[in-house]
């Protein structure tokens, strides 16, 4: 239960999630990485709620999980839409922002 372990773990999860977002080509792969990030945040919240007996922190963690669900829904809807329009699921297929 020491923060010396959990905090770096959360950091690591976060960074891995960032790495995944930057690296993954499949759209759903990006979504998985996003979940990782959110989980890192939840872990942090839970840790601090235990460390400082902070109720709101735990509640916030709950909210994060709820929102993660929402976000997954919307994200997957977008992926499906992308798959339908661009006929691809790879993120490099969506290059409408190309300047």
């Amino acid at each position: 239960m020491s923060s010396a372990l959990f905090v770096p773990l959360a950091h690591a999860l976060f960074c891995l999630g960032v790495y995944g977002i930057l690296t993954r080509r499949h759209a759903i792969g990006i979504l998985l990485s996003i979940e990782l990030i959110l989980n890192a945040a939840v872990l942090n919240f839970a840790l601090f709620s235990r460390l400082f007996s902070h109720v709101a922190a735990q509640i916030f963690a709950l909210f994060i999980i709820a929102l993660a669900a929402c976000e997954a829904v919307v994200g997957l809807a977008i992926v499906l839409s992308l798959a339908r329009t661009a006929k691809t699921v790879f993120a490099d297929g969506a290059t409408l922002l190309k300047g």
Partner: protein
Amino acid sequence: MGYEAAVQQLLTPTTIPLPQLVWIPAYPLVTFLVLILWGRRLGRFSGWLAGLALACSCGVVLTLANAVFAGYRIVTQWTWLSATNPRWTFGLSVDGLSWVMLVVVTAVGMMITIYSIGYMRDDPRFSRFFAYLSLFCASMLGLVMADHFVLLYMCWELVGLCSYLLISFWFEKPAAAAAGRKAFLTTRIGDTGLFLGILLLAWTAGELRFAYLSLIRHQLQPALLTAASLLIFLGAAGKSAQVPLHVWLPDAMEGPTPVSALIHAATMVAAGVYLVARTLFLFTPESLQVVLAIGLITHLFAGTVALTMTDIKRVLAYSTLSQLGLMMTVLGLGAASLAMFHLATHACFKALLFLAAGSVIHATHQQELAHLGGLRRVMPWTAFLFLIAALSMSGCFPLSGFWSKDAMLLEAWHSRPWLFWTLLVGAMMTAAYIFRLYLRCFEGAAGQTAGRGAHGGHTPASAASGGAGRHESPLVMMLPMSVLALGAVGAGLAGSPWLHQPFFRLLGVTDVHEGIDVFILTSSTAAAAMGIWLAWTVGLKRRVLLPAGLRPLGHRLYELAAHKYYVDEIYERFLINPFLAATRGLAQFDLRVIDGAVNGAGSASVLLSRWKERFDRAVVDRLVNGLASTIRQAGSLLRWIQTGVIQQYLLVIVVAVVVLASVVRR
């Protein structure tokens, strides 16, 4: 202004103010303006209008006779410059001297104007001729009435201008145009002298009005007077064609014959004589000697040349030169009234001679003596009038020329006897050349008819072939000639002792020789007879009188005179050609140096602009284009970043966050 008031007081008793004096030159001046503007529409009437104007002026002049003969001076003045101190007033003044000239100009001018209506009948520029003629008369009248040197100078220049316009009236002929230029330039030299004289007087004496000048004359230094009078004489010499400024007068015969009659016989050339007479009070004995010398040289020079000329008008031209020289000689003796007397009589008979010559030319379209002869049978009346004029000119009693010539010989006899004998020789020459002309023209065998439009002058209105159209001139030409003949006959009586010399009294001369001097009478008649006989034998019968030994010398002298003593050639060689060469040199300088500099500047700027263009293209354009392409490349480089792949954008964001977070530390 004590001076002004004092002079006014002196002059006032003998002056009569009369503003109507202005009408005398105004009539012809207005006619000039009318004819210039509407002459073409007036057509034939232009000539009569000009004659009418002169008649009106003549009328005004004659009404002044009483006052002038009584010794009064009629004046009118107006302010010319009011900014100076004292003010400049110009004015017209008529005293005896002016009045004589006025009568001559208006009367002779009127006759010649009427004659010209017939002579210039078929000329396309008919009305313009009379416009110029009117302008000339107006300026001549102004000249003789001017009481201020500057006003006189203005009219002097105007007269010169009219002379130029009229000499080159038929300017399509290059000879006429050249003659006009020659006249203008030669008289210009004289005019410069006159102008310098006026300046000198203005600067030293400070007074330019004749009346006033004559009163303050004794206050001026003799050296100044000599200088000023010589300069004024230079002007007179130019206008009156004295040697060496005489070269324009013979060439001026290119103009129409009425022009020669009016301007170059009767009036304009007399302006120089008038000027000297008017300013005689300025002449010192030294300057008078110069005047006499020049006049005498001219008289003899021109007389000898006149004996050799073969063109009618040239003979008359040299005859005019000779007579003008004679007038100047008499002026050199200080006898202004005698010179004016001869001027008046000369105007009559010389104008008549010219008009008669004009008649001949009009009828025969010839001017060369070789082609004329025996015309008395064809044109008797013209011949008769010519004869009268010739007799008057030779000084035959009791014609007008006799009186004037006798008076002059008398004066010469009393002052310088050697001059008297010289003038006698001159009188003989005069009779000789004029009768040579008369005899060759009107007597003897008829001359061969050369081709039409022969040597010599342009003749107006020639549709008739040579020979067939020889006839008397129309009435409009004969009538004025007859009137002039009356003058040639009777004008001398005004100076004759029979009428108690009203002429001389008019001019204020009181001591005149009463009665006729027999010695002078006989010697002058003898000289005239001698001259006529010479003309008969040598001129007409072509007998050679010289002894055989002298014949070569005689030939050489004849040739010398026939070539007018090569004066024109000398001028050409020593004056005109160097001047033209200098002009050409300057023109070359202008072309090479100045134009070269200008063109060089032009081509230098073209070269400069080419370099600049190259520089512009190479450097500046490259800079600008390089800048643009650099920006474009930078843009495309940067655009490379905009891949549209969001993950790459995210990478940048993360890197940025990392960087920022590591830089900004709490």
